[in-house]
């Protein structure tokens, strides 16, 4: 059940110092593009916040999002916040199982009707598809989602599967997978995409909700602008190499060793909006591009069907060489036929030529 302790009390119990807490608040303000003067306001609001009940639903997913969150780097203020608020119902983290687990969910819903948050990771088989592909306690994902969201204040779709359908929705989408926003249209939804999303982004969104009681400003994909407002490319430390036209062409050439731009190795940074380049992973240690691997574009819809991971963004996903060859041959045949017909007409014109003498013309006139 949702704890009645304030966040401040709970953090102190967990040994988080005032200094550490303020540091987190300053980082949160900075992440949300708020002025530094808001740090104290965030601290005050978080200190007093009674953490809402959170029901975490896991559908067609790999648990990578939960892994990212819980194993990221500990102990941190981020996962302490999450530890406390996420325990009402979470398949992986809850102690209860079977009927008791489902009872806990229903009890949390009843007790916090209208104010609890639903966090979803994973896509779900959509209406019209076989519900048997993913069930929990004998109920379809669709039924559980609809039932749970009914009394929720808001829904947070964590990970690209929940936000956009993710890998389960990859062509040919055998389970008929859909995203949460395809089903839920009458509740506020925040999409925190990524495969997995950066843990700090998830906690940042929750911190904003706890601080202001409102949802963050969002982009067209319902992603919080504070974290998804800029592309990887725009914040990439390798960007100067792109601008100079210095590219790594293989993973072990001189360019790769010198840390040049990975565009030619398939980096999807230019079309990907996420905070990896600024917030990084594993306690700010590194992020994919810094470790020498192109961005896969995992926080964007359809990234799984967007062509080869190691092909440049400008490369078509269609098999253009094949099309070009087939269409070219067909064109050559068409041109050949047209030329043959024209030649034939010329030959006929010569063969059918009927010379007319002046006398004959005069007779006709």
């Amino acid at each position, binding site marked *: 059940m949702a704890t009645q302790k304030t966040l401040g009390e709970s953090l102190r119990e967990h040994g988080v110092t005032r200094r550490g807490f303020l540091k987190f608040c300053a980082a949160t303000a900075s992440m949300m593009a708020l002025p530094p003067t808001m740090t104290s306001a965030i601290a005050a609001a978080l200190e007093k916040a009674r953490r809402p009940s959170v029901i975490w639903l896991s559908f067609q997913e790999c648990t990578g999002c939960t892994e990212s969150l819980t194993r990221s780097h500990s102990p941190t203020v981020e996962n302490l916040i999450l530890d406390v608020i996420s325990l009402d119902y979470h398949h992986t983290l809850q102690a209860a199982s079977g009927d008791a687990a489902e009872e806990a969910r229903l009890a949390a819903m009843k007790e916090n009707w209208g104010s609890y948050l639903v966090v979803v990771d994973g896509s779900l088989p959509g209406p019209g598809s076989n519900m048997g592909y993913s069930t929990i306690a004998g109920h379809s994902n669709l039924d559980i989602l609809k039932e749970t969201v009914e009394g929720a204040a808001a829904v947070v779709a964590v990970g690209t599967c929940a936000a956009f359908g993710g890998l389960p929705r990859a062509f040919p989408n055998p389970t008929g997978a859909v995203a949460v926003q395809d089903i839920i249209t009458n509740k506020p939804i925040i999409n925190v995409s990524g495969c997995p999303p950066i843990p700090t982004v998830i906690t940042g969104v929750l911190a904003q909700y706890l601080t202001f009681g409102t949802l963050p400003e969002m982009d067209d994909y319902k992603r919080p602008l504070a974290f998804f407002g800029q592309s990887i490319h725009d914040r990439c430390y390798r960007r100067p190499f792109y601008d*100079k036209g210095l590219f790594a062409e293989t993973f072990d050439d001189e360019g790769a060793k010198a840390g040049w731009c990975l565009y030619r190795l398939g980096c999807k940074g*230019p079309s990907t909006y996420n905070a990896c380049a600024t917030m990084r992973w594993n306690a700010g240690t590194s992020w994919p591009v810094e470790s020498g691997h192109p961005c896969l574009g995992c926080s964007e819809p359809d990234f799984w069907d967007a062509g080869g991971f190691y092909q440049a963004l*400008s490369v078509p996903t269609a098999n253009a060489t094949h099309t070009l060859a087939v269409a070219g041959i067909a064109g050559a045949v068409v041109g050949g036929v047209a030329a043959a017909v024209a030649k034939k007409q010329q030959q006929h014109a010569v063969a059918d030529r009927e010379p007319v003498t002046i006398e004959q013309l005069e007779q006709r006139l």
Partner: protein
Amino acid sequence: MSNPMEFLLWTKGPMFNWAIAIFALGMLARLVEIFWLGRKTNYAEARASEWGPGFRTMITRSFADPGTFKRSGFDVLVGWIWHLGFILVLFLFIPHIELIKSVFGVAWPGLPNPVIDAISAVTLVGLVAALVHRLMHPVKQHLSTFEDYLTWGVTFLVVITGYLAYHRLVNPYPLVLGLHILSVEIFLIVLPFTKLTHMFTAFIARWYNGAIFGRKGVQS
């Protein structure tokens, strides 16, 4: 196509296939017809070879003779500037080279992006200047047809969307990149059926001219 990424993938996938198929079919049909029909057999004894003068004329006709330059200095200069800019950007921008490599399997070194950026800007100015001149000049205005404006439009669209995409002036990026690719596809579809075919046929015509003169032993 409910979101910009789906739009981008549509332009990179099915639409690219359609565009390149129509382009290849239309262009090959025209070229094969042109080559097969050839020219009327010339029974006169050749005074010199056709090949050398033919190929030489393909290049020499790119440069206006002094008389033409004096008469139409603006057309020659602006035409040269934006044509050259268009070709340089098309073949020497790294993402374009990657595309060419994926389709034809050949690649070459590119130019640094800021150089390409500057060339694109000059090309855009050249294209606008060409349009303004066409609209202001009474003779050109009289001679211009819908096709002239159409070919200018599809060319300009390709360059302007590319410029906007490079500078990321439209958000989100997949939308503007998709628009650039789509405008290239429109260009490719329109190409075989309009005067844009001159990018192939101009050189064939020059070769014939040079060859005919060469055969007669006349300077071309």
